[in-house]
């Protein structure tokens, strides 16, 4: 009997390890910033370099910070999803144009639409570094107190929007 059970147990253990291991994305490194206060920033707007925007102005609101760039291909995938979300008026999306060229970033928004409440311009990526950005796009869910509650690495798609981002936003809005 043992002779059959042992290989079966080994097989089950191995396959469960593989199942979990292979479905994990090694690029998805858990952010230590979740549960911490979002780094404050004050940056010029993408479309108007004379105007500054400070993250302090978002206090009291639940909001999304979406890090994007014109050179990032996955950002093009998530763009229509963000456009759709913006139209539904559920949560303000703040754009952080990361290590981009001003004209090129502006051109993207002019050409394919602007889902952002406003976009700040982080030319040298200093603020991106503060937020622990290493892959673009990244999206942060930030609560009324200015605490980062979640971080989505990679494109926002209808699925993670529906199952992960929006339920959290609704929950945070109730508080």
């Amino acid at each position, binding site marked *: 009997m043992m002779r059959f059970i042992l290989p079966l147990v080994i097989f089950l253990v191995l396959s469960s390890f593989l199942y979990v291991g292979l479905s994990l994305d090694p690029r998805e490194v858990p952010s230590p910033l979740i549960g911490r206060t979002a780094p404050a920033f004050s940056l010029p707007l993408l479309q108007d370099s004379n105007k500054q925007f400070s993250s302090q102005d978002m206090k009291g609101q639940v909001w999304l910070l979406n890090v994007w760039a014109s050179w990032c291909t996955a950002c093009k995938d998530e763009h229509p999803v963000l456009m759709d979300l913006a139209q539904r008026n559920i949560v303000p999306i703040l754009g952080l144009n990361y290590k981009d060229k001003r004209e090129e970033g502006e051109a993207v928004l002019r050409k394919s639409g602007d889902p952002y409440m406003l976009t700040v311009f982080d030319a040298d990526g200093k603020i991106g570094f503060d937020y622990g950005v290493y*892959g673009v796009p990244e999206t942060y869910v930030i609560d009324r107190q200015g605490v980062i509650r979640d971080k989505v690495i990679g494109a926002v798609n209808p699925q993670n929007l529906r199952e992960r981002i929006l339920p959290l936003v609704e929950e945070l809005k109730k508080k």
Partner: protein
Amino acid sequence: MKRFLSILLLVLPVFAIADEARDMADNPVIERRMINLAEKVRCLVCQSENVASSRSDWSNDVRQIMRDKMIAGASDQEIMDLLVERFGKSVLFDPPVDKETIPLWGGPFVLLLLGVGVLLFQLRRRRAIVTEPSLTPEAAHQAAVLLEEEEGKS
């Protein structure tokens, strides 16, 4: 003209070097310190490479930040702490032993113990099989009789 062209050709590679040089700090001591430190940091974009050898954009940025911080007088430890604070312990190739990383450090030993356990179990079972008398007295007697018969025939 020919001479001018050949000089131009000789000079051409200099431009290639000039582009690379952008990556260097003016201070070779800082540069060496930075490379030493960067070797201990995982490139999060390329995962199994370290920041010192990676050519990714993200690693370039991290190296530049290390340089800036070093020039500003930060210690290696302060820079590492900053990186861990931003990107988590997974940026370290040699993470400290704590609650979060104990499976990482302890896992191999647990597996080793498990392996030794299985080995001991198997060895004990095998010994039990081997020490079983290979011949019962009756069988030995039977064999002796058969052998005698064989001898009697020849």
